């Protein structure tokens, strides 16, 4: 039990997909202007990531490896991810039209979110078993959602600040992302065993 908790925490904090591995920066910068949207994006990504980790693990173990189809890995993973994203989009339009509107183009772009594919591929690389793969996905997604929320909160506050013209907009967002990354370096070398 504690092992799983440790895995979750280390993937979420120590090896944070965004701030340590620098994956998934597109939505990180794109959908972080509003806290609500960022949390929505985080949850959508969480869903896709979890689903994709599980599906890609099954695909890998039951199809690609037995038949020696390793060269189809990226194609088939993207296919699975794309389908999961499409499913989320359909569901979201039904159950939360506001969020659907707010996320806009970034929702289908989860398909090309390298964090999702990256986690799926890393799982294969690590040779994790199903539970670990799933937890890895959940942990990464939790880390993604966490920093999305933190970053969006700070950016919401920046909306009210009189940032100098030369820093306004994307520059100050990148500076903030850098400082956030600096803060997350505090977790480096974290060993919970």
């Amino acid at each position: 039990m504690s092992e799983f908790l440790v895995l979750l925490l280390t993937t979420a904090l120590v090896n944070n997909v965004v701030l340590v591995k620098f994956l998934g920066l597109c939505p990180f910068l794109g959908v972080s202007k509003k806290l609500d949207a960022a949390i929505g994006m985080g949850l959508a990504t969480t869903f896709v990531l979890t689903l994709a980790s599980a599906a890609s693990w099954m695909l890998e173990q039951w199809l690609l490896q037995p038949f020696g189809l390793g060269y189809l890995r990226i194609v088939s993973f993207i296919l699975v991810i794309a389908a999961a994203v499409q499913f989320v989009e359909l569901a979201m339009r039904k159950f939360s039209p506001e969020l659907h509107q707010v996320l806009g183009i970034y929702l289908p772009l989860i398909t090309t979110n390298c964090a999702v594919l990256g986690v799926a591929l890393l799982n294969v690389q690590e040779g994790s078993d199903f539970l670990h793969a799933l937890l890895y996905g959940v942990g990464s997604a939790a880390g993604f959602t966490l920093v999305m929320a933190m970053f969006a909160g700070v950016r919401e506050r920046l909306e009210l600040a009189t940032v100098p013209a030369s820093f306004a907009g994307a520059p100050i967002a990148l500076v903030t992302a850098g400082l956030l990354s600096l803060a997350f370096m505090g977790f480096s070398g974290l060993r919970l065993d």
Partner: protein
Amino acid sequence: MLIAVTSLTLIAGCLGLILGFAARRFHVEPPETVSEIEAMLPGSQCGQCGFPGCGGAAAALAEGSAPVTLCPPGGPALARALAEKLGVAADLGAMAEHEPTIATVREEICIGCTKCFKECPTDAIQGAMKQIHSVMKEACTGCGKCADICPTEAVSLVPLPTTLGNWRWRAPACA
């Protein structure tokens, strides 16, 4: 090769089935955006936005080819409401400058031709043939159609006079 083709087809087919089912299960009617937007606009068909009437403006707004700040009579309030409705950011910079104006008739020049009276989209001008016309403040949108058509330039747009009723605090000096 065959295995690869078959497996990918199989995967795609399964996912397609799932998505097809989901599309049906989660089906939603697309909202009637244009008519909803048209209902938000003043409806005076004044044409200040450059579109032929509010219907045209609504269609342009819905497809995103017109800015939400296009309606001067609606003012910043409408621009914000539209921005919220359409999910876009409203740049109210240009809008804030727009002071509300109303039409006034200079009685010494007015010849009572009733042209403005007929042109006014909101029936804000009262009068009759060969009589001096006057403007009802509450109904005038400041669209300027009357000023354009007046043969003697007796109608002009002036800023709404400040009274105790509509006076308000200006923004404090920024700190």
